[in-house]
Structures are given as structure tokens and as C-alpha cells.
């Protein structure tokens, strides 16, 4: 912590970060607050976070496993196929549902201190990414049990996670701004998420989709991110250049739209929260 303790003491006149540098420390504090609140109270909190994706995978494997495997051996290991898709989708759905509410939840804070409002949606996305860390433990367990080897291609996975994170930040900025003005966006989004779950090949193979849906999937960002992750972890292949561009493209477009909408309306938030 205090590596350079011998450095001159900071005078009380120089207590503040310059305005542009404050957000890092604020975000760190806010995310660590979320983390403590979620995991400190119960030792089971951590266990549960690992168990949750495992149980979900087991149930789905039991229900769909037998006939999916017959139909499509090209899926590879079905358990790993399932858990990779489910956890990545869960990351997006956690990040955006929490991010969407973040401004409303932070209303009392926004009336008390001068703070850049975007930190709240970003905080919730970062926290969802931290939670995803526990899902990685579950994924590792399944891969060990199922004897699916890990190859060097897995080092590409952070690329998908990073772009997915930016994509989620963009969505959360957009949704959090919308939710301030129209509270029913919150209900609407949970419906969208459910529909999106079924529209994405999480537990079924891409190939069983009719042709028009196969075409449409290329415009489904979650299909792209999940395919990328499965390619590098489960199938040991390096995704095409186009896949890389698509991951980045969805992230940049979502962020640009989200930020533009958020920035345009953020000064009016205080009137509605």
C-alpha cells in the first residue's frame, strides 16, 4: 500500500485529485463496497456464486443433454458448451439490469456531492465482471471433471470479456438514462432479457435454427461474444478477423450510442429522481 512512505507528506491544501483523476478511486471504492456488501455477511456467498452456474448447467444438461448430443456431436462437450454460454449471458444480464437501476439507486448521492454521473452504471458493470470471476472457477471445475483440455487459444478470452464489458457499459448508460425518465423501461428490459435468452444459442446448437434466424444471429451481439468464447476455450480455434471486428464493433457502437444519450440527458436527471 504505502510503498513510498518516505515521500513528502501531502498537505491539507493538496488533498484533492484533479477533477479528471477522481473517478478511478471513486469506482474502486464503490465496487469494493458492492463486493463487501454481497460477500462479507455470508461465507456461503462465495460458494453460492460458484455453485449457481454449476447447478444451472447441471439442470440444463439433464433436461436437454441426451437428445442434443445425439443430434449434434459437433457441439463438443455439452456441459462446457452450456456453462460458457450461460455464464457469459448472465454477465450481460446482471450488468445491464443493475446498471439500468444505478442512477435511480444513487439518487440521494447525486443530490449531495459533485460527481460524474456515469460512474454509477460503470460501477455496476465492473461489479458484474468481478462476479464473473467466480463463474470462471465453476467453468474450470467443469473442464477438469469433463477432461476438456485448455490450450493456448484461451489466452484470447480476455479480448471477448473486455469487449463484452464495454458493450455492457454502453447498454447500461442507455438504459440507466431511459429508466430515470420512464420507470417501466425496467419491466420492459426484463422481458427483453428473457426473449434474448431464448433467441441466443445457449443450450441448443446454432445449426438447428432455420436459415433466416441463422442470418439474424450475426446481428445478435451475445451470439458473437459467446461464439468467440466457445471457440477459444472449447474448440481450441482462433476466431476469424471478422469475429474480432464484430466483437469490437458491437462494443464501440453500444458505447457511442449509450454515452451520447446519457450525456445529452444527464443534466435533467436531478429533476426526475
Amino acid at each position, binding site marked *: 500500500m504505502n510503498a513510498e512512505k518516505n515521500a513528502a507528506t501531502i498537505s491539507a491544501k493538496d488533498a484533492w485529485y484533479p477533477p479528471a483523476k*477522481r473517478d478511478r478511486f471513486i469506482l474502486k471504492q464503490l465496487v469494493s463496497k458492492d463486493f463487501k456488501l454481497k460477500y462479507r455477511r455470508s461465507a456461503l456467498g462465495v460458494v453460492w456464486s460458484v455453485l449457481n452456474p454449476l447447478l444451472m448447467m447441471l439442470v440444463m444438461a439433464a433436461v436437454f443433454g441426451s437428445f442434443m448430443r445425439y443430434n449434434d456431436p459437433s457441439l463438443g462437450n455439452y456441459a462446457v458448451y452450456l456453462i460458457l454460454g450461460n455464464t457469459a449471458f448472465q454477465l450481460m444480464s446482471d450488468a445491464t439490469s443493475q446498471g439500468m437501476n444505478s442512477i435511480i439507486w444513487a439518487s440521494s448521492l447525486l443530490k449531495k456531492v459533485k460527481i460524474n454521473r456515469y460512474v454509477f452504471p460503470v460501477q455496476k458493470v465492473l461489479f458484474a465482471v468481478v462476479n464473473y470471476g467466480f463463474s470462471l472457477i465453476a467453468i474450470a471445475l467443469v473442464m477438469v471433471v469433463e477432461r476438456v483440455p485448455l490450450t493456448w487459444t484461451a489466452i484470447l478470452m480476455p479480448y471477448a470479456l473486455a469487449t463484452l464489458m464495454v458493450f455492457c457499459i454502453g447498454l447500461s448508460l442507455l438504459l440507466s438514462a431511459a429508466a430515470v425518465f420512464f420507470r*417501466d423501461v425496467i419491466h420492459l428490459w426484463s422481458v427483453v432479457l428473457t426473449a434474448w435468452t431464448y433467441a441466443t444459442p445457449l443450450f441448443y446448437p446454432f445449426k438447428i435454427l432455420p436459415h433466416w434466424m441463422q442470418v439474424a444471429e450475426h446481428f445478435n451481439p451475445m451470439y458473437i461474444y459467446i461464439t468467440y468464447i466457445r471457440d477459444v476455450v472449447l474448440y481450441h480455434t482462433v476466431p476469424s478477423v471478422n469475429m474480432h471486428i464484430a466483437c469490437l464493433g458491437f462494443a464501440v457502437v453500444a458505447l457511442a450510442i449509450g454515452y451520447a444519450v446519457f450525456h445529452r440527458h444527464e443534466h435533467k436527471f436531478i429533476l426526475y429522481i
Partner: protein
Amino acid sequence: MANILKRPPIPPEDAETVIDVDDVSMIFNIASEQFNSLKEYFIAAMRHELKFKEFRALNHISFKVKRGEAFGLVGTNGSGKSTMLKIIAGVLEASEGTCTVRGTIAPLIELGAGFDMELTAKENIYLNGALLGYRKEFIDEHFQDIVDFAELQNFMEMPLKNYSSGMVARIAFAIATITEPDILIVDETLSVGDFLFQQKCERRIKELVDSDDVTVLLVSHNIDQVERLCDRVCWIEKGQERMVGPTDEVCAAYKNLGK
């Protein structure tokens, strides 16, 4: 508040302007019915019924404060004094007009932002400090000073929910006043802790007021105190700027209000 506060020396004529409030208005939305749903919004939009019930909490306010000056704001309840302070502190954005501020601010307006009752006092000090824009190393270094000032040495690892409200207020005040700002903003409705701690707070505010070059902005319902401390005063009444000028003139006029 403090009887011990004294008027600081009046700054020279050519001192630099640190707070420039230029024609500021603040409009709040006090519509009783808000369009909280998209459906309602579209129905209302089609009927051209989008209502935005405006309330002007501040109406074209202008004043300048120079470096080293002690400036007071007076006015009856709900006149917009706290709103003005929040605009200067940057918490609220003025609906119209501009407010320019030069220098660091310690806003003693609403303390304890971001306090979470489940977290320990120590964690809350870091969280609140971060939200106020403090450097991490600064909090590390001055952590003990904050604890000493609040006199809560043995309670740092306890969750805030087990604190009394006075103890929470002590921590909040200690964090807010650990710095030496260029501009000190005090909303006097903040009275914290028991009488001993109140005296301590007053002494701390006095220390800050007395330090070199600090600019003070004070809101108080205690007219005597404003008269003792401030060089100039602005009187805001129901959002309208009534008078700006030397303390004695403005306070005399303000005191006539009740007669």
C-alpha cells in the same frame, strides 16, 4: 453557531474573483404526476399534454465573491439559499446562467454522502473521502487525524448501523473538515453532535476561516453571527435577489422584514 467567530480582514479592492454567479436561475420540476411510464408518455404526447410544472427556486441571481472574503446569504425558509450553495459547490447545475468557481471547495452542506450503514466506519471514511475527491494517499496519511477529531478511536471496525446518529455526524464532519480548502461553504442548519463536539466543530470552522486566503460562504439564520463574520451579504427572498452589499446595510434591511 460560533460566538467565537470573528470577521476576517477585508480583502483588498483588487483581489481576484473566486466565485462568479452570473444571472443564475434554478428551475425544479414539481409536477405532482410524473410520466413514469412510456405508455403514459406517448398518450400524453399525442394529446399534446406534456406537462412540466416548473418551480423557480432561484430567479436571476448574480453576485461575485473575492478571494479572502467572507460572504453571507440570508433569507427566510425555502428562499433558495441551500440551492444556491449547491450550485456553487457543483452538486446542482444551474438551469440558466453560469456559475464559475476557482479553487478547491470544502462544502459543509450535506455531510456523509455515500455512507453505508452496513460498512465499518473505516470503510465509510474511505468511501466518503473518495466521493469528495480526496486522494487515497491523503486519506491514508490523515486517517488518524480524522479518527482523533471524531474521538471514536475504538469504534473504527464497527458497522455504522451500530453508531448513534451523533457519532455518524461526528465522522462526517471530521472527514469534511480535514482539508484546507480555498473556499469554505457552510450551511449552518448543520449542527452536529453534543455540545462539546459542537464547540469543537465551531473551533475547527474558525481555524479554517482564519487561515490565509480562504473564502467563506455562510448561510445562517443567526443574524448576529452573519453580522459578526461577513464582509458582504446577499439577501435572497423566495428565489429573488433582494439586495447585495455591505453586511450592515443588508442585514438592517433584512431585519426590517419582521416589523
